[in-house]
């Protein structure tokens, strides 16, 4: 379990992380979202003791990261896959990490195999690695100590489609075994597929957090009918505010069951009725972070 309480990190003249609190629960994958520069990476760096917080705490299974006797065995960390000595081979990087944790060397080979790096690739220097290969190496380093907690910053970056699928299965499997996973990503589709809980951060502040279902349910219902105007009218009659979108769909905050019931009494045949979660995460993300987006996207 990862617990972040009232975490604040100020730099001269600006606050990167502002009073952030959330919990990543065991057995669940927690997605950490936010626009560029929102404070995701800073928060993650504070969690693992690379950055000193101005105030507040971050604990892992109730302990400060710096107090863990051998952190690699308890927390797998991947913050930046490119942050490796370019002159070392992949295998050497894993060997150093494995030796630091006091693990048998056989573990290095297991990990190289697990992340699908070939033995020849493992012997090459990291300078010659593609981003995807560096990511795989970083994931291997994180998993080396067989930890119960994973903290991953943009782990899917640079992975090929098969790699992304593999990563998704890996993390879901890890969580289902009782592990805690905190991962940040810009790939909203990925997060939507994999995450159980979401934490959305914008300008250093938490703008939303909760289970994926809760947050996406708030995005409402999309309903289509052959006569959308009649449908919108019927909903209005029933006291449900709705908007008629240009593509002929009707959007409303009410849940699908209620919308269906209204359509039935009004005798309107529906062609589609679903909660808006399909496109929901992106919409939710943009609307929640609208104030903090660089592009000033109107949600």
């Amino acid at each position, binding site marked *: 379990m990862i617990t972040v309480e009232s975490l604040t990190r100020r730099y001269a003249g600006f606050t990167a992380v502002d009073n952030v609190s959330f919990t990543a629960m*065991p057995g669940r994958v927690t997605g950490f979202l936010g626009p560029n520069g929102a404070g995701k990476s800073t928060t993650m760096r504070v969690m693992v003791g690379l950055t000193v917080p101005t105030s507040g705490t971050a604990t892992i299974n109730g302990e400060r990261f710096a107090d863990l006797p051998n952190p690699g065995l308890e927390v797998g960390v991947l913050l930046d896959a490119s942050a490796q000595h370019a*002159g070392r081979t992949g295998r050497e990087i894993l060997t150093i990490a494995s030796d630091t944790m006091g693990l048998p060397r056989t573990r290095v080979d297991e990990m190289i195999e697990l992340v699908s790096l070939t033995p020849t690739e493992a012997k090459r220097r990291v300078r010659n690695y593609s981003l995807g290969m560096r990511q795989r190496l970083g994931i291997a380093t994180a998993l080396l100590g067989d930890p119960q907690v994973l903290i991953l910053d943009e782990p899917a970056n640079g992975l090929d489609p098969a790699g992304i699928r593999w990563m998704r299965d890996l993390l879901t499997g890890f969580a289902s075994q009782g592990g805690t996973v905190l991962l940040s990503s810009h790939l909203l589709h990925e997060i939507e597929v994999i995450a159980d809980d979401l934490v959305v951060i914008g300008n250093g502040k938490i703008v939303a957090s909760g289970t994926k279902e809760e947050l996406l349910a708030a995005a409402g219902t999309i309903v289509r009918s052959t006569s959308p105007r009649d449908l919108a009218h019927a909903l209005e009659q029933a006291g449900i505010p709705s908007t008629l979108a240009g593509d002929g769909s009707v959007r409303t905050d009410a849940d699908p069951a209620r919308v269906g019931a209204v359509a039935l009494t009004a005798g309107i045949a529906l062609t589609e009725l679903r909660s808006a979660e399909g496109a929901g995460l992106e919409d939710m993300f943009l609307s929640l972070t609208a104030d903090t987006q660089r592009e000033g996207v109107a949600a």
Partner: protein
Amino acid sequence: MTATIISPDTIGAAPARRIVRPIPTTRLVKIELRKMFNTRSGFWMLVSIGVLSVMATGAVLIFAPDSEIAYENIAKAIGFPMSVILPMIAILGVTSEWSQRSGLTTFTLVPSRGRVIGAKAFATFVVGVVSMAVAFAVGAVGNLLGSTIMGLDTVWDVSLAAAAQSLLGNLVGMAIGFTLGVVLRNSAAAIVGYFVVSFVLPGILVLLAQVRSWFADLQPWIDWNYTQVELFEGATNTGKAWAMLGSTTMISIVIPLVVGLLFLRRSEVK
């Protein structure tokens, strides 16, 4: 939180939450030693110590007049490249964590940065002592072989005390490099810094001592180069000379190192 299996691909069921023991310091030193030489640059620096020792010995044997074929001259010839390479090893051992960004992994695996730097310092010391031992050995073999082949008397004119001082002189150079690494935490800056404090600064201080008489008396107390050269010459023999060495070590190594460490421990690793 009982099972810790990562994926179906890893073998078997891992035990329930294991008892985690702290990382012993001896292990950290071993790791830091390994890290000094498992990169391409580190590997070649290690090789160059051996190669340059042999080359320097060979050069003395080939080019020096017969009367100069003596252990002292061979040792001096080897000593010069060593006094440049060893500080570089000390610098890169520290700065690569920042310049190559491997510190992100190092300091998440071992959050106590003081312990990591301590382990690096000890590893640097070991490298210094072992390299010097190798250099003396190569020089001795060269001296023996050279004088035998040329039919000269083998001259052993380096006292144990002088050898010890030469070792200490190199360790001082490494400590200066290490200090610059800790303070600057950037490979390029620290290497440039090293050449400034070891080649540019002494010239300025000597010049200053020549034009300002009050500084001439002060210089040996603050110029670490002066006391290092004394060590290389084997001339640190009086209490005053040792006091001067203590003074320059305090000013150029101890104080900046302590200040640098204080900053390093709280700095952000990015």
